[in-house]
C-alpha cells in the first residue's frame, strides 16, 4: 500500500504549523522526516495516521493492505503508550482483541511477535519491570502484531539512552531486513535518519515545509554508524537544518 500526501497545510489558531506538504510514500520503504522541534512533524504523522484532520490537503492511500492486515496505519509512540496494568503479552493482545480471531490464532500471533522482538521470556512481566528499551520493543511488537501496511513511528528512540538507541536501531534494521515494511519515521536525530531511512525528508522550521528530500542507496543492513558515506549525508542534513534549528530556537525564546 502506497501513501500520498497532497498539499497538506494546517494551523493551530493563529499559528501556521504546516504548509504545502506533498509527499509520496511508496510501499516497502522507510521514509524519515527530520526537522527542528516544533516544526510540525508529530502533527503531520498524526494526520497520516488519521488521528487528526488537516485543515488543507488530503492523505490518500493507494492499493490494498497486505494479507492479514488488521490495522493498516499503526503507530509507535515516543513514550511507548503501554497500559501499565497489563502484562507484556496483555499489551500486545490489546491490539488484537477487537478483531475476530480464534484464541489459538491470537496466542500464536502474540508468541510470534514477542519472539521477533526477543521478548518471549518477558511475556508475563509488567511494563514497570522493564527497561525503557524493552518497553519500546513491546510497543514495536504490538505494532507488528496487527501486520500493518504502514508503521508510523514518532521519535520512537528519543526517550532512550544512546546505547539502547543503538541496539534498537539494529533491531529495527533486522526486522526490516527479514520482512520489509513500510514506515514513516519521525525523528530529530540525524544519525537515526541516515541509519534507517531510504529517503529523508527535511522540514523547515514552523510553518513546516519540505526543504529537501535526500535518498540513500546503501541497503539498510550494510549501514554502520560512523561510516564515511553516511557521515557525508548527515553533514549535509545538518547544513540544511542548522539555520532552521537556530531560528526555531530563537523564535521559541521570543514567544
Amino acid at each position, binding site marked *: 500500500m502506497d501513501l500520498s500526501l497532497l498539499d497538506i497545510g494546517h494551523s493551530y489558531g493563529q499559528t501556521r504549523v504546516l504548509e504545502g506538504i506533498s509527499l509520496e510514500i511508496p510501499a516497502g520503504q522507510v521514509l524519515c522526516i527530520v526537522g527542528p522541534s516544533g516544526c510540525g512533524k508529530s502533527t503531520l504523522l498524526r494526520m497520516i495516521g488519521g488521528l487528526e484532520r488537516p485543515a488543507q490537503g488530503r492523505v490518500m492511500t493507494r492499493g490494498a493492505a497486505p494479507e492479514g492486515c488488521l490495522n493498516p496505519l499503526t503507530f509507535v509512540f515516543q513514550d511507548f503508550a503501554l*497500559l501499565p*496494568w497489563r502484562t507484556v503479552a496483555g499489551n500486545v493482545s490489546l491490539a488484537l482483541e477487537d478483531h475476530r480471531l480464534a484464541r489459538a490464532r491470537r496466542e500464536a500471533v502474540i508468541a510470534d511477535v514477542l519472539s521477533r522482538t526477543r521478548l518471549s521470556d518477558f511475556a508475563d512481566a509488567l511494563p*514497570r519491570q522493564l527497561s525503557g528499551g524493552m518497553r519500546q520493543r513491546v510497543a514495536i511488537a504490538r505494532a507488528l502484531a*496487527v501486520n500493518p501496511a504502514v508503521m508510523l513511528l514518532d521519535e520512537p528512540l528519543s526517550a532512550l539512552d544512546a546505547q539502547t538507541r543503538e541496539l534498537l536501531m539494529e533491531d529495527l534494521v533486522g526486522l526490516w531486513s527479514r520482512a520489509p515494511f513500510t514506515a514513516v519515521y519521525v525523528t530529530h536525530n540525524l544519525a537515526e535518519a541516515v541509519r534507517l531511512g531510504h529517503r529523508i525528508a527535511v522540514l523547515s522550521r514552523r510553518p513546516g515545509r519540505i526543504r529537501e528530500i535526500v535518498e540513500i542507496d546503501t541497503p539498510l543492513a550494510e549501514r554502520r554508524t560512523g561510516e564515511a558515506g553516511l557521515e557525508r549525508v548527515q553533514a549535509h542534513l545538518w547544513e540544511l537544518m542548522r539555520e532552521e534549528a537556530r531560528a526555531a530556537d530563537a523564535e521559541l525564546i521570543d514567544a
Partner: protein
Amino acid sequence: MLERVTATAPVRAAQGTGPEQGREVPFRGGGFRPGQRRWVAPVLFVVLIALVEAGTRSGVISNLTLPRPSDVFATLVDLARSGLLWKHLAPSLGRLVVGASIGAGLGILVGVMIGLFTLVRAGLVPLVAALFPIPKIALLPLFVIWFGIDEASKYALIAFGTFTPTVVATYGAVDGVDRTLIRMGQSFGLTWLSIVRKIVLPGALPGILSGLRVSLAIAIILLVAAEMLGAEYGIGAYILEAGALYDLERLFAGVTVLSVLGLVVSFLIGRVERLLLAWRA
C-alpha cells in the same frame, strides 16, 4: 594506541592533620520519603489513652470533661455481653451498606458519564457543585416527607451524602487518564466501548478508590444524622440517646464503635487497592 589505566591506581585517603587534611563528604540526602512504621500508630494510640486515663484518675482532668477510658471500655464490654452492641450495630451496618452502595454506585456511574460526554459534563458539573456544599442534615425534614420515617429516608440521606464526593472524585479520575493511552487505543482501531472498558476505567480506578475512602467516611458521619430520624436501634441512635442524657461513658463507647468502623472501612479499601492496583508497584 589506547593507554590502559590500571583499576588499582593508588588512592590517597588523605586523613589526619596538616593542610591537606581530608574530610568525609557529609550525607544530606535523608528524609522526604514516607516509609512504613507499623508500630507508630498503636504506640501513639496507647500513649494518648494512658495519658487520659492517668489524668482522669489523678483528677487533673475532671470527670465532667472526659470519661475515664477504662470506664468506656467497661461500658463497651457490657454492651457486647448483653448482646445490645450487635442489636445496635446490625441495623447501622445495614443502613451504611445499602446507603453507601447506592450513593457510591450512582456517583461512579454519573462521574464516568461526566468524564466521557461533553453534554453531560456541561449539565451536571454545575449541578453537582451546587449540591455538594448543602449540609445534608439540614434536609432531614425533606427526606422524611419524600421517603417516610422508615429505612428509606435513612438510605436516601446516606446515599445523597456519598453521591456528590464520589461524582467529583470519579470525573476527576477519568479526566486524569493519560490521553496518550486513549490516542493509542484509537490508533489501533479499538471500539469506543473497548477504549472505555480497557483503558479509561482501569486508568481511573486509582482515583475512584481514593475518592471512595472519603465518601465512605462521610457515609459513617451521616449515619448518626440518619438515625436522628426515629431509629430505635443503631449506633447513631445509641450515641444520640447517650448525648441527650450527658452519659459520657456511653457516648464515648458509641463514638469508639464508629471509629473502629472507619478503621475497618479504610482497611478494606486498602485491601481492594492492593488486589486491583498491584500493577502500581
